[in-house]
């Protein structure tokens, strides 16, 4: 037996050594395997949830597809990994996924201490509370002594403690790992209130047995800029994800939609539009390591930011969330893209 052990160990060590050299070029590995592995929420209607046919849909899901459209010219070349809030960063750090698009709040420590880089903000959110109407509470400041259900490992958990400490009122946290468990405990009456990002509160309310019996309190207690995340140190891949988002915004700003993109590519005289759609032989895609028609296929297959917003969370969806902060900068919102030039 001993004789056989040695080569086995040598082999193991060798295998570990080759596996240990982490590849920095995410784009190469994505191209080699033929799809983008994207981390999404386990189920947040409007952002990432499987529909009745089992297909993933939502704003965050569309961002995964958008990156696939940019890299492969085909938005279907994407695979999804549903992740709990607790597992999401480890999955990205370890290389299990290529990008994380899971309503994740951009914070300084996540950017500087965790080996991650945020690639933009695809949804400006803020944390709120939902309570049962029967409780007779109309303000978060009246929640003194309440039990509050919250998901573990989120900025929400920290904001909650800060808000109550800042207002000198007390609460009892009831913490679960999975959002389904948070919802179930709140609905079962274990908690007086539930807290998460306001968009999430509206989305989850739709899934409750009696949505009308619950009310979202007016206070927004935090800034929650949500966006896609990539591993730090791979600028090429960061640029692809970042400029995918920016191209969606630019397209909306210049009125390019999935319906008129073909026509505009042929006939538009606007130099901005021509540059974005590479109708003037621009080579922006090549410089980034993707086809030059990247933005054209992106908009053709996914639509612009406004279209994505509308069909997933906006007027065209059951959530009916106003654009608000997420309107373009030119329309009183915060969504602003650096120019593509």
């Amino acid at each position, binding site marked *: 037996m001993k004789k056989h052990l*040695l080569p086995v160990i040598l082999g193991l060590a060798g295998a570990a050594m080759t596996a240990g050299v982490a590849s920095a070029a995410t784009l190469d590995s994505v191209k080699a395997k033929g799809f983008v592995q994207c981390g999404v929420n386990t189920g947040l209607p409007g952002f990432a949830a499987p529909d009745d046919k089992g297909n993933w849909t939502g704003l965050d899901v569309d961002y995964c597809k958008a990156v696939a459209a940019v890299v492969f010219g085909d938005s279907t070349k994407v695979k999804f990994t549903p992740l709990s809030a607790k597992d999401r960063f*480890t999955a990205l750090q370890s290389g299990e996924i290529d990008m994380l698009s899971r309503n994740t709040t951009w914070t300084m420590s996540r950017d500087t201490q965790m080996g991650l880089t945020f690639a933009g903000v695809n949804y400006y959110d803020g944390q709120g509370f939902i309570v049962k109407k029967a409780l007779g509470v109309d303000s978060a400041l009246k929640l003194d*002594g309440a039990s509050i259900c919250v998901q573990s490992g989120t900025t929400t958990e920290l904001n909650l*403690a800060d808000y109550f400490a800042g207002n000198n009122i007390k609460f009892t946290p009831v913490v679960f*790992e999975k959002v389904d468990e948070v919802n179930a405990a709140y609905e079962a009456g274990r908690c007086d209130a539930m807290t998460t990002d306001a968009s999430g509160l509206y989305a989850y309310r739709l899934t409750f047995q009696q949505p009308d019996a619950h009310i979202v309190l007016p206070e927004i207690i935090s800034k929650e800029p949500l966006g896609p995340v990539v591993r730090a140190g791979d600028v090429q891949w960061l640029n692809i994800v970042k400029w995918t988002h920016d191209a969606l915004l630019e397209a909306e700003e210049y009125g390019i939609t999935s319906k008129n993109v073909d026509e505009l590519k042929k006939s538009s005289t606007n130099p901005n539009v021509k540059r974005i759609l590479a109708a003037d032989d621009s080579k922006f895609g090549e410089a980034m390591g993707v086809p030059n028609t990247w933005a054209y296929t992106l908009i053709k297959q996914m639509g612009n930011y406004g279209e994505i917003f509308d069909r997933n969370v906006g007027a065209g969806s059951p959530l009916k969330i106003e654009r608000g902060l997420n309107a373009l900068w030119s329309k009183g919102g915060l969504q602003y893209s650096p120019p593509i030039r």
Partner: protein
Amino acid sequence: MTADTGIVTHTPSETARLAGPTQPSALNDPKVRAIGYQLVLAIFVIAFGWWITGNVIENLRRANIASGFDFLSGRAGFEILFSLIPFSANESYGRAFFVGLLNTAYVSVIGIILATIIGFTVGIARLSPNFLLRSIATIYVEFFRNIPPLLQLLFWYKAVLALLPSPRAGFVLPGDIFLNNRGLILPKPVAEAGAGIVFAAAVLAIIAAIFVSRWATQRRVLTGATFPTVKVVLALLFGLPCLAFVIMGGPFTMDVPVLQGFNFRGGMVVAPEFMALLLGLSVYTGAFIAEIVRGGILAVSKGQTEAAGSLGLTRTQMLRLVIVPQAMRVIIPPLTNQYLNLTKNSSLAVAIGYPDLVAVFAGTVLNQTGQAIEVIAITMLVYLTMSLLTSALMNWFNLRMALVER
């Protein structure tokens, strides 16, 4: 072949050659070669560990992921449902670790005590001559032993305790005790001046009880005279603190919970998450312990029971004086296993929101700091230490209970 197995077989001609004047080379000595292989293996294992560690540190540095244990002194910033030591968001991650550790230890220790009581009761009941008692015990064991513990936890939490009414419509039990979906809310005794004397009396009573029982055993061994040890010890344990309590004029006040706003204010709260975890763990492990106890008792030869019976001992006396002491020698080793299992299973708490070590430290702290390797390593080390400690304690107990042969 011979070098591998260590068994040396020689044909007669070889034996003759070996016995000759030429000394065989040390390289051909199976013992030397075996040691050589072991050395090479050890060097490789150490080198492998060294390389892995270096590789991890280097890659973390390259990926710009913070490493090291400095994060433990950082501000936690989150609240915890239930804590044995004072905790707030302003405390450190290190303190959050201790909160989680104590919560795990708390539910494990109480769970072990409860599971042992359940296990011994049911195990003995399974051997009862009473048909009804025996059947109930059998059904209990077969039912709870064969359902996964996670499922049982979810059952207790979601199907039993979650159905309790809201605080405003909850049950009011005698003695200012309230039961609702926020948990079991009890009045909390608050110590006032003079309470120290009562505690001192309790400690004194325990010391006296140990002394009395030792003295009584010694006297019985020497003279054969019996002494009502149990009665005297009970009288000491209850009487002395009660006496002190009365003399000091009852130096405790009750902090009675009052329904105010959403929840009860004051008193002590036993959270439903804790109740569900405790119930789930002790009922599940209790079923296994019952079988171990039954097996242990059956391992004591029937002759012992018959001999005890012929001495005129009652069934209780037979169990207490003859059967159980001998059965313990068979019971303790597998019992240790069950205690370890219970401690490890307590990490399932994460599924029902009880803030144990895994939920608080390997959950929230890991996610807020992103330092997965350090956090998971510490957590594993803690479980390992707890298991080894339990093992050591039970080995010591086993040694004490073992048959002393002369």
